[in-house]
């Protein structure tokens, strides 16, 4: 290794002074660490990054970063972020949230964000439960998962986010595991670098309502095959995988969507006048 000048930003430069209030043991701590490590590797100044979220435990991440942040409305993080990115294409836009926020309340936005392919990175911390509201089943909960709130389980087929993302046109699809924060940091860095809509699903255990998810550390494994850019091949793999393959699983090179800039609309006062009542 040769002597080089020290990088300008370390992971801690992307963390705010606010202490997270997640339950100790929660996988989201590791995902926060992965996000800040990824940003440190990319050396993107914190003021050039916007972290947008909806509602839920994992959606608290914007407050814990030192970047611009927007803690938005439940399920609406993606449209917020799309609006931000198309008006400020110079920003690196990262969207964070959970499986309830992203796949249920925000499910329709998820489909169209994949389809629209705006250049941003969507990180979903999937713990297969609504943790913030005390443990209701989410779209990714197994049909036979029982608790005091769901006697007998939901008996509903779980949502398959990676398959849906692929079918809807996502440009980059990866799965990480919070128990491997360094590997997840690499996935996030790759997702941010990749043009277009990048989707990173991170299995992030809820140790309070799903303590059995601690076992995920024994179940996750690197995907046995290289990432593919063949949508048909990826569809077969994603539809049949065991849900624990990690790594980049699909990438495409569709040009990101960017609406033509209307010079007139850059005049904020004129824009205001158009909406005057």
């Amino acid at each position, binding site marked *: *290794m*040769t*002597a*080089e000048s*020290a*990088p300008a930003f*370390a*992971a*801690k430069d992307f963390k705010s002074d606010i*202490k*997270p*209030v*997640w*339950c*100790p*043991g*929660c*996988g989201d*701590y*590791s995902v926060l*660490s992965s996000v800040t*490590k990824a940003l440190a*590797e990319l050396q993107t100044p914190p003021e050039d990054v916007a972290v947008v979220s909806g509602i839920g435990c994992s959606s608290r991440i914007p407050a814990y970063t030192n970047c611009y942040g927007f803690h938005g409305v439940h399920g609406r993080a993606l449209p917020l972020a799309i609006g931000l990115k198309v008006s400020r294409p110079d920003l690196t836009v990262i969207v964070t949230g959970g499986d309830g926020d992203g796949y249920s309340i925000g499910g329709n936005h998820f489909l169209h964000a994949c389809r629209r392919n705006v250049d941003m990175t969507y990180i979903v911390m999937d713990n297969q439960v609504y943790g913030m509201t*005390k*443990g209701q089943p989410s779209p990714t909960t197994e049909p036979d998962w029982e*608790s*005091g*709130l769901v006697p007998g389980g939901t008996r509903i087929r779980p949502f398959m986010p990676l398959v849906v993302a692929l079918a809807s046109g996502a440009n980059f699809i990866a799965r990480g595991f*919070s*128990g*491997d*924060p*360094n*590997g997840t*940091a*690499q*996935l996030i*860095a790759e997702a941010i670098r990749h043009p277009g809509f990048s989707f990173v699903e991170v299995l992030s*255990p809820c*140790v*309070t*309502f799903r303590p059995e998810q*601690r076992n995920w*550390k024994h179940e996750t*494994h*690197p*995907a046995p095959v290289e990432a593919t850019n063949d949508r048909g091949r990826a569809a077969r793999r994603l539809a049949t995988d065991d849900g624990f393959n*990690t*790594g*980049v699983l699909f990438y495409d090179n569709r040009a990101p969507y960017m609406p033509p800039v209307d010079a007139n609309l850059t005049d904020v006062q004129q824009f205001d006048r158009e909406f005057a009542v």
Partner: protein
Amino acid sequence: MSPGPSSKGDDPIKALAAGVASPDDVLAHAHAMESEAADRYHELADQMEIHNNPQTAEVFDKMARIEQIHADKLAAMCAERGVTRRPPWEYRWLDPEAPEVTPVEEAHYLMTAPQALKLALHNEKRALAFYETLLAGSPPDDVRALAEEFAAEEREHVSLVEKWMADYPDIDPHIPEDPDDAVAH
């Protein structure tokens, strides 16, 4: 994915011999190990403070300060030799994270101070095992010298934490019961 941690089933001695092959590699790994351990102890101390568990927070805070001293010393050694930070996924740990780093899922809001010390001891032993595994691979002399120096330091840390733990001969492995459990039964 990254070459990062060696795959399950890899021979750990061979994996470390391949990934930590020069004195710069040893220094880079040692620095990352100590600084990541300090960061995680800081995070754990914050978690315990937020969850009104001050005794356990104090243990983690103390460990964070100790690890930070080591990290600063190693940062100076790295700077002297021009060893720079690497992407986190390029370190060749035998587990997903550095051996001295407490896995996030080990924490619990009701864990006791002795249980935190037990975790710290486990971490120090894993750090020692890392250098012993490296030494078991018959490394070059310059790598051996550094690995022996760091292994000796980790042995001291193990002894230190064991000394602290002598005050708690019977550590209850169970997390105390929460009379106001969040989970609906």
